[in-house]
């Protein structure tokens, strides 16, 4: 069994004090707790500060284009369903440039775990509003305040009938590790939106700001109840619930619709000449 050490320890390009560090630790813990070895894991990311995370882990990595982690992850998972596929990226990457893929992923329900480092800002490009930046918050690019309403990814995921939706907090890494562990265990698409302080560019949603607001979803919450889930998902203000918001184990995975995927990975299969010949004959 792999230990946390097997997932390595690297120098990062992050700012001291960034919330990303504890997310990385939580992730390593979750991977270990899930009994995964590095070579079984595929981390797919886009571009941004969060998207560098896979470089700080020993595992397979597809660090693709800004906003395009989900399609790449989908392709990889369909090509080899035995891979344990995680998507890791920032809020801008996941919900901004990648918004359409987010919708499509929720509709597909491929067995992928999506971790969003949600610092409510574009970090790597130095502080423009992201989709989750609060309405009216002033930034370098929006000196008069962000003119659009903030995106609530958790509420949209619930509205889209996602199978597994959770919200975590970088300031609570053990809790977060458990969420990631559960998300990975869920058979289907699982979203964990992670509140992540950005000490360099988000002076509003700071560690203290989050700390003041987050509260653990109580035991009696029934994530199988859509209405309850929606009510929790919409809370993002003075109080922000963290934990598993929604779990619907009855949605079939995307993969289950493809008999060919029941036979394992697509690589290493040679074309079946007899079948090809029959296909050619059908054109005669």
């Amino acid at each position, binding site marked *: 069994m792999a230990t946390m050490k097997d997932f390595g320890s690297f120098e990062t390009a992050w700012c001291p004090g960034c919330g990303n560090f504890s997310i990385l630790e939580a992730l390593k813990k979750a991977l270990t707790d899930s009994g995964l*070895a*590095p*070579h*079984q894991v*595929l981390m*797919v990311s886009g*571009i941004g500060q969060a998207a*560098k995370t896979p*470089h700080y882990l*020993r*595992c*397979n*990595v*597809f*660090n*693709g*284009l800004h906003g*395009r982690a*989900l*399609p*790449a*992850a*989908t*392709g*990889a*998972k*369909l*090509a*080899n369903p*035995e*891979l344990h596929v995680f998507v890791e990226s920032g809020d801008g990457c996941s919900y901004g440039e990648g918004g*359409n*893929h987010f*919708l*499509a992923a929720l509709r597909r329900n491929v067995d992928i775990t999506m971790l969003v480092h949600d610092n409510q800002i574009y970090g790597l490009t130095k502080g423009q509003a992201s989709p989750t930046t609060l309405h009216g918050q002033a930034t370098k690019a929006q000196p008069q305040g962000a003119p659009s309403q903030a995106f609530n990814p958790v509420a949209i995921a619930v509205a889209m009938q996602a199978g597994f939706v959770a919200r975590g907090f970088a300031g609570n890494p053990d809790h977060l590790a458990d969420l990631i562990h559960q998300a990975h265990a869920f058979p289907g698409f699982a979203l964990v939106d992670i509140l992540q302080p950005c000490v360099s560019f988000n002076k509003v949603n700071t560690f203290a700001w989050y700390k003041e607001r987050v509260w653990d979803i109580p035991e009696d919450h029934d994530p199988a109840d859509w209405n309850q889930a929606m009510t929790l998902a919409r809370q993002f203000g003075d109080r922000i619930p963290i934990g598993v918001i929604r779990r619907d184990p009855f949605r079939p995975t995307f993969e289950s619709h*493809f*008999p*060919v*995927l029941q*036979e394992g*990975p*697509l*690589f*290493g*299969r*040679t*074309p*079946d*000449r007899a*079948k*090809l*010949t029959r*296909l*050619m*004959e059908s*054109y*005669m």
Partner: protein
Amino acid sequence: MRVSKNILIAGEAGQGLVTVGMLLTKALARSGYEIFISQGYESRIRGGHNTFAVRTGLGSIRAGVRDVDLLIALNRESIALHRAELTHDALVLVDSEHDDQAAKDEVLEADQKAPRNQTLHVPFAELAPGKVYHNIVALGIAARLLGLPESVTTTLVKETFVRKKADLVEKNLNVLHASTAWAGKQAAAFEPLPESPKSAKRMVLDGNQAIALGALAAGVRFCAFYPMTPATGVALNLSNAARDLGLVVEQAEDEIAAVNMALGASYAGAPALVPTSGGGFALMTEGISLAGMTETPLVLVLGQRPGPATGLPTRSEQGDLNLALYAGHGEFPRAILTPGSVEECFRLTHAAVDLAERSQGPVIVMTDQYLADTIQAVPPFDLDMLSEPLRPTRNCDEPHDYNRYAFTEDGVSPRLLPGTGEHLVVLDSDEHDEDGHITEDLTIRKRMVDKRLAKERKLRETILAPTYIGDEQSDLLLICWGSTLGPADEAAEILRKEGRNVGLLHFRQIWPLLPEQFLERLRQARETVCVEGNATGQFAGLLRKEAGFSVSRSILRYDGLPFTAEDILRELNIETGQKLESRETMGR
């Protein structure tokens, strides 16, 4: 020697002309004739004006022609629209229900223009118990006029309906026999096709089907696409075969998703293909650059149509050459294959899959609406003769020392798949070190650029040389690429028959170019004419840039229609005694 007739089925979208056309085409192919089908349609589902042109005969037929010998007019408008194309002794089939005065006037006018044109007023309503049987009527009559054995059409009809409702076979056969018999009784003098030699069974395939077959034969296991004419057919054909042949075909939410999905799949070991057209390809540009940077094999099929923007979505053009050449920011190698026939669609797609793996990067197969919808009869491909495409290795001895981007002489690093052993496969869109991890080391940056570009040298080793048809030295050299092969070839042949020394150089790979392979030929010709379906002479520009050679002139077409041999001859402005050889050899 080539002898041919051109049968044009014309009518509105939704009248089923493709159904009649396909039945007739199969009947001709099975009877041993060559066929060449070109299709024209509008960007709508019903109404408008569509055409299905069947050129058929003996000897190699590689393009469509404008002149029509047999017009099957499914509506009245079709007569007016195609009157000018009727040959001197063409026959026109019309529904006798169209025999109102206006229709008669149309026909009369047509007759006046070309006195021997004859019209056959077909009593569709009498011969068929309902509209759905009209295509069988047309089939029966056309087959009889062309002299096809009734056994062929009978078998065809049986096959077509056997999987449907039980009594359908019988009903359709009755209609077929009645129509054949009716046609036999008509006095209309329409000379049947010459007798055909016995021939082996052939497939009746369009360009898109051949591409799909090529992909399957090469082991493509993943296709992501977003529908776009004229490339959708490639995906539909793969989709239909998916279950049986074991591949995943997914309609993506957009083109960007399609290309990124394909890259993910390819990374994880499934040879992947993405079909699209110009607008979708434009959206994939960033993804193509990602394929270049991450050295991930990827086959793209670019079915061109006239642009810019939405342009003429159902017509043909060769206007995206420069786009294909330079799509993607930054610098990385690629290969571009440009099939000129249905058979080449198969072979070059097969080659593309292999080439993508060998060069670990993007390979583009470029067609256009004309070729995508062109139907030809081709012998079944000999699968045993195909080379086995390269596959990535799946394991290594020292997994912990594995570096996805290890520096090598030829720039190609050993490609392992993730999850198949203890090694880790790290891929990065940023500049990266040998192990795939992001780097800001500018010395490594330079080495990595050199490594990636070195693969172009490798690609140059296996360039498919342009094919040359003609005498060793030519007076006039026609140059073409992709789908223009057919018409250019026929034009050259006609001129050669006139005693002119004409050569044809067909580029089936337009990137990379290896001037050694063709420069001498260009230089030796007295006149070089580049024939291409765009307005700015893009390939001629590429020859200037890459071979330092300026062609004498270009013949360009960009109104949405493909070239015919006549177009080329007309533009060459050569007074040729014979309009088209087919006219002569048919001896009428």
